[in-house]
């Protein structure tokens, strides 16, 4: 059967942003370059840019989130779009309306873009497949599948601090199994030419055959962190203790939490990243989170520029 590409149009341009997987490096770099031009804007006390004037952007959050939703909202407003926030977890879905019903209703209200977060992997793909062809979909996190804008802002941050992707050793540490962030990071890093991507976690938090994604697997921080340039920490959900993935947060912190001592094992100029929100004392020690190698706050700032870039590339008024 012939399936059209889920996120590129027939000219190879970005129609939706659903995952970093399968996107050419040129598109990823175009997003990062475009974001560069917005960083100044976000740092200045801003005038709005009219790129999305007259566009209606719906924040469709089927799963609670304040941070991601807020950064999308700020990004959209800086581009002069009209933003409508829908917290669907407590509205239509609880009345039994299906995902596509909700989307169709909102499409009828002249939506130009949907920013979707959903607990089910594939939700954004499903919406993208069924919306009118002039509507754009950005995946703001679906189940354990993908969180492409997070990965892109991470790539932006890495490039800012480390310049050349092709000379880096990157380690992703934590709950890879359940992490949409990790999957999107891995695809983006490998596409951008990072020669060595490592994952470090106990076996219960790693998918079987994870090495098929092009990563090197480590279970031991001492070995996995050696000579690493970039450390990407993942958030550990508290539910993991219930599902018998881990015995306790304490044991996890002892063996996989990032402390100043463990950070010493990496390169002296290594940077530490975290997608937030952090569990201090579980996956990361406060001394590291707030330390001089941490780039966690710049990540947040760059997140707005990167989301502006994605939105303007997808739906920007042609200059």
């Amino acid at each position, binding site marked *: 059967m012939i399936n059209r590409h889920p996120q590129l149009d027939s000219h190879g341009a970005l129609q939706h942003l659903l995952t970093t997987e399968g996107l050419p490096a040129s598109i990823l770099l175009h997003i990062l370059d475009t974001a560069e031009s917005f960083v100044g804007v976000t740092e200045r006390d801003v005038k709005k840019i009219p790129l999305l004037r007259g566009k209606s952007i719906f924040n469709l959050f089927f799963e609670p989130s304040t941070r991601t939703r807020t950064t999308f909202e700020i990004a959209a407003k800086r581009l002069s779009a009209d933003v409508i926030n829908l917290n669907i977890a407590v509205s239509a879905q609880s009345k039994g309306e299906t*995902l596509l019903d909700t989307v169709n209703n909102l499409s009828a209200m002249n939506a130009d873009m949907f920013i979707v977060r959903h607990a089910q992997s594939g939700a954004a*793909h499903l919406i993208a497949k069924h919306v009118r062809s002039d509507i754009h979909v950005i995946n703001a996190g*679906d189940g354990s*599948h993908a969180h492409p804008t997070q990965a892109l802002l991470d790539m932006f941050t890495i490039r800012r601090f480390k310049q050349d992707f092709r000379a880096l050793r990157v380690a992703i540490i934590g709950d890879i199994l359940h992490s949409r962030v990790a999957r999107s990071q891995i695809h983006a890093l490998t596409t951008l030419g990072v020669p060595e991507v490592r994952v470090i976690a106990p076996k219960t938090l790693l998918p*079987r055959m994870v090495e*098929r*994604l092009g990563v090197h697997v480590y279970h031991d921080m001492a070995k996995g962190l050696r000579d690493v340039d970039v450390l990407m920490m993942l958030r550990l959900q508290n539910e993991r203790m219930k599902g018998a993935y881990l015995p306790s947060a304490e044991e996890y912190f002892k063996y996989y939490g990032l402390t100043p001592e463990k950070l010493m094992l990496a390169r002296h100029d290594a940077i530490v990243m975290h997608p937030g929100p952090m569990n201090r004392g579980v996956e990361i020690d406060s001394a590291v989170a707030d330390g001089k190698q941490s780039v966690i706050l710049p990540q947040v700032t760059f997140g707005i520029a990167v989301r502006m870039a994605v939105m303007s590339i997808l739906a920007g008024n042609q200059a």
Partner: protein
Amino acid sequence: MVRIHIKNGRLIDPAHGVDAIQDIFIAKGKIAGIGAMPEGFQVSRVIDAHGLIVCPGLVDLSVRLREPGFEYKATLESEMAAAVAGGVTSLACPPDTDPPLDEPGLVEMLKHRARNLNLAHVYPIGALTQGLKGERLTEMAELNDAGCVVFGQPDSMLVDLKVLMQAMHYASTFEFGVWLRPQERSLTGSGVAHDAEVAIRLGLPTIPVCAETIAIANILLLAKETGVKVHLCRISSAEGLTMIRAAKQQGIPVTCDISINHLHLSDMDIGFFDSNCHLMPPLRSSGDRDALRAGLLDGAIDAICSDHTPVDEDAKLLPFGQSEVGATGVELLLPLTLKWAKDTRLPLLRALAKITSESAKVLGVDAGHLAVGNAADLCIFDPDCYWKVTASGLLSQGKNTPFLGMELPGKIRYTVLNGQMVYEQ
């Protein structure tokens, strides 16, 4: 009474090793002659089957008719019409209706309704436990009087092994077969896809192969213990198959089947979350699929079934993990079996055995072969006619299948049940 002469057709009767141009003569609902015309035979209708294949009516080991309880998904009328449009004249229907087929009255009603429609022979699979809850045994002997030939738990294995052992002991008392889908529930959890690369990439919760193999190990050990005839439904993995092959060599009375979906597809077909590929057991690797195909050839796998599971459209328009499990299939049983034969250059005689004589043997009914004096259940099809699978072209109320849009070989021209033409095109 119609007396039919089917002439010039290529007769394939796997049970008797026949593959030759032979005529068939039907009278009084039975086969009156094969080859030469019986003496004094008065023909009232002649069917020229030149270029067509004439074979026993197909025997499908799993067709969900969705009645009682799920009429919004499908009805007896729609699904039996679909069955005969697929050349199926005998079908086993699983007990996972609402209420489940755990009382003789329900089974009698189903049999009665099916008989009135007079489209195909319906063999209900009785529930092994009351309400399919896995706690108390059903009245198997009474259910058998009502028409259940075998007993099963269609979704997964019983949680309580003691109850399963007792159910096997009790069933074997009456020499009833027990049909189980080998799946250890605690290892399946909320999983929806094979535990490998595709599911990792898509972030879908996984079902490891050991969810199947551990269940197979338990079932085989209990079968050995109780001596019951066990049929393992919908095998999905190479490892599971290896265990069954070994059990057969040891003389344990076990049979197994696979679905048309697992005969052709692998987890790669999920693509970008195609919910039509949300099936149970999950589609596994292409290596598993190749092993299953090999298992059909060496006899480790006895039969192919459609695993026909009509689902209403809306239930598939959901994110993969929330979409309903299953695919329509009874109209694709023959085409997909033929496609497998063509793909692997397998003689039709051997391929058709898996959906006629062999599946009838598993079910334990006198069907799926042709003999003078037997009920005239036939399927007559054009093996070289390719047709495109479309939602509107399927008679089943279920329109979802991974094969939508594909061109498949094998168009049914006539289906004959008890000597009556129940489908023709």
